[in-house]
């Protein structure tokens, strides 16, 4: 055994793994930060390289080629599915203790670089999250850490990556807790905070401490704060449109019987065509967001609304048709234009009121869309505060984020990241019923103290067995091949129990129930419970390969369930 691969055994970390997690968090934070910077730099250079060809008539081919290449790379080379990867990370965290393949640490970086660099409308954040989490997971695996520690390091990877790409450590931390892990615990929060800070520091060392969207201070009046509620409603509406169009597009495209790369290319070409008229919608669009915030986006309300609508369409075509990338940057873009359009509409309606500049509403809109689409209001608030470098908008920001996420929840109970998981019943947040049931295996609940009997056994022979048994159920097995034939219940025997003359006349084969519902040893507990409820049974026989292996009962389940819940959640 190589000692260095088992740091949990070192004297320093033996009795408390918090220190171990903190040390690992630094390593994961650095790696995730580097991955984020790598994607950022690669994007800048690809965009720079292709910039010269943007004005040519065939430029619309570029997003098509980029998306097709990215799809081919994912499908043929690394054998991974398209999409942004965040639901996969969440599922792996809740179901497999955060196990993520090593290749995921770079696959999405390359594919999203191809998609976004060529002009596809998507964001680099989700791929970076996937990459950071994969790095965290694989570092945990290298050092033989257990599931709980691995999940923490996956969180560290996410926090480091988001911290680095936005230069926003708190947003990284909050996003991890709110979206990826779904729980706030002291054991997790410290390493994750440290990873977020480390990732951010790496990015500051390599890229300088740049505030992404710096701006002047805004003078916010009471009227502006009141107007925020309207903005929040608009944001919620746009979030729902965005969510639905993305999901609707994916569903429709999934039915098409075409090679994946061809679908991606077709989507990319449409985005490219939109880009000829409105080049602002191409790429991740940070440049345009900056213009919106600083008030340099001069075009009128109509153009702003068109850009907004087209960005939604372009994002749906990029991601829905098989391009690779996230929705974070498009959401920020869309949010800033919702804010911009809203402010212009307000000025139109009440020209005499001295509204705050449109840049402020753009910021609020960004928070509104992020909170709405991710249903993560804290992430929205902290991200905007950090990437714009000021707390002066915190009051309206909080209102917009809270109202928008609440309004979205009314219409779409699950957020964009979680919707697929919820639909498949795979959202297993810590401490929930679904999670506890998913963790307990059937093998742990098997009651094996039943005494098997054979169908040819006489009632007289059965009486001594009845005396010895603690149970009132007896599985009947074929004497020759051991196949499970049915169940003899005490209730079936009771009428004959005191009739001695029948002891030699009746055999168990006459008394047993043959129509017995059974479950398998690998069934999901949640399905088994559903079956019990549907049949109104308190216990069911477990049968594997036509052989009886034991009983499963609600009584044992309650006992184990309760202890599992006590272990999974701290009770003191």
């Amino acid at each position, binding site marked *: *055994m190589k000692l260095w691969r*088992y740091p*949990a*055994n070192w004297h320093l970390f*033996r*009795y408390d793994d918090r220190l171990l997690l903190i040390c690992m968090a630094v390593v994961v934070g650095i790696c995730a930060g580097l991955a984020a910077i790598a994607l950022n730099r690669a994007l800048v250079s690809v965009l720079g390289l292709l910039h010269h060809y943007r004005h040519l008539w065939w430029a619309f081919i570029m997003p098509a080629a980029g998306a097709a290449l990215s799809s081919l790379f994912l499908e043929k080379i690394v054998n991974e599915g398209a999409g942004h990867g965040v639901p996969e990370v969440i599922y792996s965290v809740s179901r497999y*203790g955060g196990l993520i393949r090593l290749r995921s640490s770079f696959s999405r970086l390359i594919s999203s670089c191809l998609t976004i660099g060529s002009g596809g409308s998507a964001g680099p954040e989700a791929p970076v999250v996937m990459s950071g989490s994969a790095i965290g997971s694989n570092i945990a695996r290298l050092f033989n*850490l*257990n*599931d*709980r*520690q691995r999940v923490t390091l996956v969180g560290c990877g996410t926090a480091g990556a988001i911290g680095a790409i936005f230069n926003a450590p708190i947003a990284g931390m909050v996003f991890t807790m709110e979206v990826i892990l779904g729980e706030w615990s002291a054991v997790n929060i410290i390493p994750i905070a440290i990873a977020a800070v480390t990732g951010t520091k790496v990015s500051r060392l390599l890229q300088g401490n740049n505030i992404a969207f710096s701006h002047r201070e805004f003078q916010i009046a009471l009227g502006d704060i009141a107007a925020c509620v309207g903005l929040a409603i608009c944001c919620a509406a746009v979030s729902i449109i965005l969510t639905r169009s993305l999901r609707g597009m994916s569903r429709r495209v999934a039915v098409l019987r075409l090679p994946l790369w061809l679908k991606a290319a077709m989507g990319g070409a449409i985005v490219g065509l939109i880009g000829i008229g409105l080049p602002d919608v191409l790429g991740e669009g940070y440049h345009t967001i900056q213009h919106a915030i600083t008030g340099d986006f001069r075009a009128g309300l109509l153009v702003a609304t068109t850009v907004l609508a087209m960005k939604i369409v372009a994002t749906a075509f990029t991601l829905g048709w098989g391009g690779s990338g996230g929705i974070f940057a498009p959401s920020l873009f869309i949010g800033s234009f919702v804010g911009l359009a809203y402010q212009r509409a307000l000025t139109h309606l009440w020209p005499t009121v001295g509204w705050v500049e449109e840049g402020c509403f753009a910021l609020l809109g960004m928070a509104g869309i992020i909170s709405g689409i991710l249903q993560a209001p804290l992430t929205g608030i902290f991200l905007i505060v950090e990437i714009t470098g000021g707390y002066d908008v915190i009051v309206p920001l909080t209102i917009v984020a809270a109202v928008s996420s609440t309004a979205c929840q009314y219409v779409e109970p699950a957020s964009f990241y979680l919707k697929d998981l919820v639909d498949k019943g795979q959202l297993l947040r810590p401490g929930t019923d679904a999670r506890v049931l998913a*963790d*307990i*295996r059937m*093998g*742990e609940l098997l009651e094996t103290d039943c005494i098997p009997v054979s169908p040819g056994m006489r009632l007289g022979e059965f009486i*001594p067995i009845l005396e010895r048994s603690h149970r009132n159920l007896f599985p009947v097995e074929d004497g020759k091949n051991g196949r499970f034939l049915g169940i003899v219940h005490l209730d079936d025997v009771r009428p004959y129990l005191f009739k001695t003359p029948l002891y030699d006349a009746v055999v168990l084969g006459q008394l047993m129930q043959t129509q017995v519902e059974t479950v398998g040893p690998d069934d999901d507990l949640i399905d088994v419970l559903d079956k019990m409820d549907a049949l109104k049974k308190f216990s069911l026989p477990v049968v594997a390969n036509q052989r009886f292996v034991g009983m499963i009962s609600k009584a044992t389940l309650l006992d*184990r369930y309760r*202890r599992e819940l*006590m*272990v*999974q959640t*701290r*009770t*003191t």
Partner: protein
Amino acid sequence: MKLSIQQVADALDLPVETVERWVRQGRIPFQRQQDEIHFRLGVLERWAVQHKLPFHLTSERPDPKEICQPGSIHEALQRGGFYYDIEGSDTESVLQSAVRRLRDLELSTQNRTLLLARLLEREAMASTGVGKGVAIPHPRIPLEKAVPCPTICTFFLKHAAPYQAIDDKPVFILFLLLSPSTSAHLHCLSRLAFCVRDDAFVSFLRSRPAPETLLARVAAFEEQLDAPN
């Protein structure tokens, strides 16, 4: 103190699979040494308290072997001893002289009085005369700490005495049954009843046999009972 995974599973009263899963998921504190894992008692006890889990090491539990097993009644008969020529003309006087004669059991005067009171209380409910001249007096509630193991004291009466038995026949022998628990009591009672059901055995008892022959006869019955089927 180091514990193995099996010991921990036993202490938590859970299957080993669950503890193994908790180890894998990092939910239970453990240490790894040369590919083997073990647990520290102190750490684990703190963890159990923190999560309010019941945790009892197997050795801490009362060893079932230490509590006397119900076992065979010929041993119980041996423990109780044999008393001949018990005086008395009715239930109460017979029991009085029987309890007075108890010498093999170390009973305090207080316990002796209590025992008599309990026996009479039981007789008042319904006679323990099971017929054929045999009575099995016993207290309804086991006498706590009076006897560590089931004990049967055999009393042969000087003269058969009326006892309100179910067949109204006078009783010539008493089996005083004392047990530490109800389950042991029922166990001995059912075995004793099995012996007494046999008419040959009852007439053998009427001959006031010596303790050794009586014990040998009971042992033979028990062999018959313990034989498979």
